[in-house]
């Protein structure tokens, strides 16, 4: 018979062994594709503002003060360039897209004879610069810019992420008593672990939901065989059956036969009824018989898809898909999603740092040292490196000549080359210097972004504040915030090296402890 002490001891060691194996699982599931996960989280977070980033990267275009103003500007321009046309078309700016496009048809032609893009605020024609815009972050988020194989890596990273989230909950022993704990004055490892815990726990529902729905968005790419077996035409008829009602539902009836005199009041009524005016078709302008057709668009409303489709399957899929894209989100909600995304990026970054700082204390064997070297340097190259590359991407958008052929591709080259340079630097310099120098570079680069943008476009912070240009204000303030955080961290690293050589400095300097 086993004594109660022995049973308790056996129980204890079983718990310990579960704990230890979960800790190992958490460390390796988090580490293996951790850098990829960090990139996915960071670019995905930025992609919540994809159209806004594109707007910042095309500063020629301006949002009009009102729809009526945009219509007036378009008609003024059309009257000047095509007074005798038989038809005018006006594509109006949307909620998140400022482009005001006009086109016209001469009376003796049945095709469009001219088109222009206008600055919606001033009515002047503009040439829109060729840029990748926010699409860089959107595409990178799920393809890693690696056609054909990227989304498989992303899927694997997402699966490992789910494993890391669940095992992380199990290994966090003092989950309740440490719920609000952050000790910035303790060791770097302690502080990183606290930030890791806080950003994981407080945004836990977001992490689980976003990673899971992320896998769902690519569901049909990951498991195509079911579709291909049941629907031999590449699943096209499946998509028609499952998601058809969506298209029919989104079209709104156009207003036809509106007289030019009634245009302003009709637009006012449409906007008051909660719709957007998408485009205008003006037949026989500048004559007695002028008639206008007004095409409508729906203002995105904060609702899920649930009442839109006939099929429950389509409802579930749409809800998960639209949650992942934040398509339902209005401004406050979009910022909430963005801040949860930032928390997720910080969670992964600090998790990688903790792994690094913890192993540096114990690395004794040479095999361990090679692994630690790789992890340490990849942390710098990925976490600091990609953010420097993003700043360079924004700077390239402002500094590359507007007439440069293939300008968008050059922006992308600047992004990848600067990232490669940062990666090389991370591997060549001593670890602590690599961190410090890259954080300084990051800080300087993100001060340069609003500065260079202000000089080249004239839309600097004071002008933006005076015009209540919220998009540019937000972009500049966000850049300066990144610069401040990076600068403060770099300064702290510089100062602690100068004054003291503690155990942790030796570790951070790449010297194995003990």
């Amino acid at each position: 018979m086993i004594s109660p002490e022995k049973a308790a001891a056996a129980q204890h060691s079983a718990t310990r062994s579960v704990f230890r194996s979960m800790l190992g699982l958490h460390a390796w599931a988090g580490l293996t594709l951790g850098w990829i996960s960090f990139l996915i989280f960071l670019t995905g977070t930025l992609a919540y503002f994809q159209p806004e980033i594109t707007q910042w990267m095309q500063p020629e275009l301006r949002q009009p003060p009102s729809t009526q103003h945009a219509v007036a500007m378009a008609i003024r321009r059309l009257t000047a360039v095509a007074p005798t046309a038989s038809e005018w078309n006006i594509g109006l700016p949307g909620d998140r897209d400022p482009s005001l496009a006009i086109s016209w048809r001469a009376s003796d032609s049945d095709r469009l004879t001219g088109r222009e893009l206008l600055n919606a605020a001033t009515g002047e024609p503009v040439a829109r610069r060729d840029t990748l815009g926010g699409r860089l972050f959107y595409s990178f988020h799920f393809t890693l810019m690696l056609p054909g194989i990227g989304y498989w890596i992303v899927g694997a990273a997402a699966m490992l992420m789910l494993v890391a989230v669940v095992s992380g909950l199990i290994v966090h022993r003092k989950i309740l008593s440490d719920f609000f704990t952050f000790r910035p004055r303790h060791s770097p490892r302690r502080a990183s672990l606290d930030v890791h815990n806080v950003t994981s726990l407080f945004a836990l529902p977001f992490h689980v939901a976003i990673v899971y729905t992320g896998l769902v968005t690519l569901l049909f790419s990951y498991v195509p065989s079911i579709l291909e077996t049941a629907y031999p035409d590449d699943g096209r008829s499946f998509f028609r059956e499952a998601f058809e009602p969506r298209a029919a539902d989104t079209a709104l009836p156009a207003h036809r036969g509106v007289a030019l005199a009634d245009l302003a009041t009709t637009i006012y009524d449409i906007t008051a009824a909660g719709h957007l005016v998408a485009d205008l078709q003006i037949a026989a302008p500048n004559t007695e018989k002028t008639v206008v057709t007004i095409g409508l668009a729906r203002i995105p409303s904060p609702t899920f898809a649930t009442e839109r489709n006939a099929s429950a399957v389509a409802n579930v899929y749409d809800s998960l898909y639209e949650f992942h894209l934040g398509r339902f989100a209005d401004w406050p909600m979009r910022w909430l999603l963005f801040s949860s995304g930032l928390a997720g990026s910080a969670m992964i970054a600090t998790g990688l740092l903790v792994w690094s700082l913890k192993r540096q204390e114990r690395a004794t064997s040479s095999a361990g040292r090679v692994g630690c070297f790789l992890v340490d340097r990849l942390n710098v190259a990925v976490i600091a490196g990609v953010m420097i590359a993003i700043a360079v991407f924004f700077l390239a958008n402002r500094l590359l000549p507007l007439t440069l052929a293939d300008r968008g591709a050059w922006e992308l080259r600047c992004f990848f080359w600067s990232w490669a340079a940062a990666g090389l630097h991370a591997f060549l310099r001593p670890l602590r210097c690599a961190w410090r120098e890259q954080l300084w570079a990051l800080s300087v680069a993100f001060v340069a972004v609003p500065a260079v943008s202000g000089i080249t476009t004239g839309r600097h912070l004071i002008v933006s504040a005076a015009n209540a240009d919220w998009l540019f204000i937000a972009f500049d303030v966000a850049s300066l915030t990144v610069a401040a955080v990076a600068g403060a961290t770099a300064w702290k690293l510089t100062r602690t090296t100068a004054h003291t050589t503690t155990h942790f400095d030796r570790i951070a300097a790449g010297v194995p402890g003990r």
Partner: protein
Amino acid sequence: MTILAFALAYSGFTAICLSMDKHHRQVWRRPMERATANVLRASGFVLLAAALVVCTASFPGSLGIVVWLGLLTAAGVPLVIVLPYAPRAAAAAAAWAPIAAVAFLAWA
């Protein structure tokens, strides 16, 4: 209404946080009565629940819960980060936030 729910979530988390002895000491540098801790903890959960009520009342269907969870994240992380640097200010903000939110909503 989102701003009120955010203020309630922030105050709720701060109350729960300050009901724990180590955080209470961080702000007031002295231990607290058992009764105080209980009152703080209970009012913290009531405030978080109030934030949920505000969210479900202002957003259709299950969306209210999504917004509430998002607000919990947005309110909790700054609290924990600011607390060690400015404990008094973080606590004072919790007392003023709901009042300021109501005042803002009345003015707007």
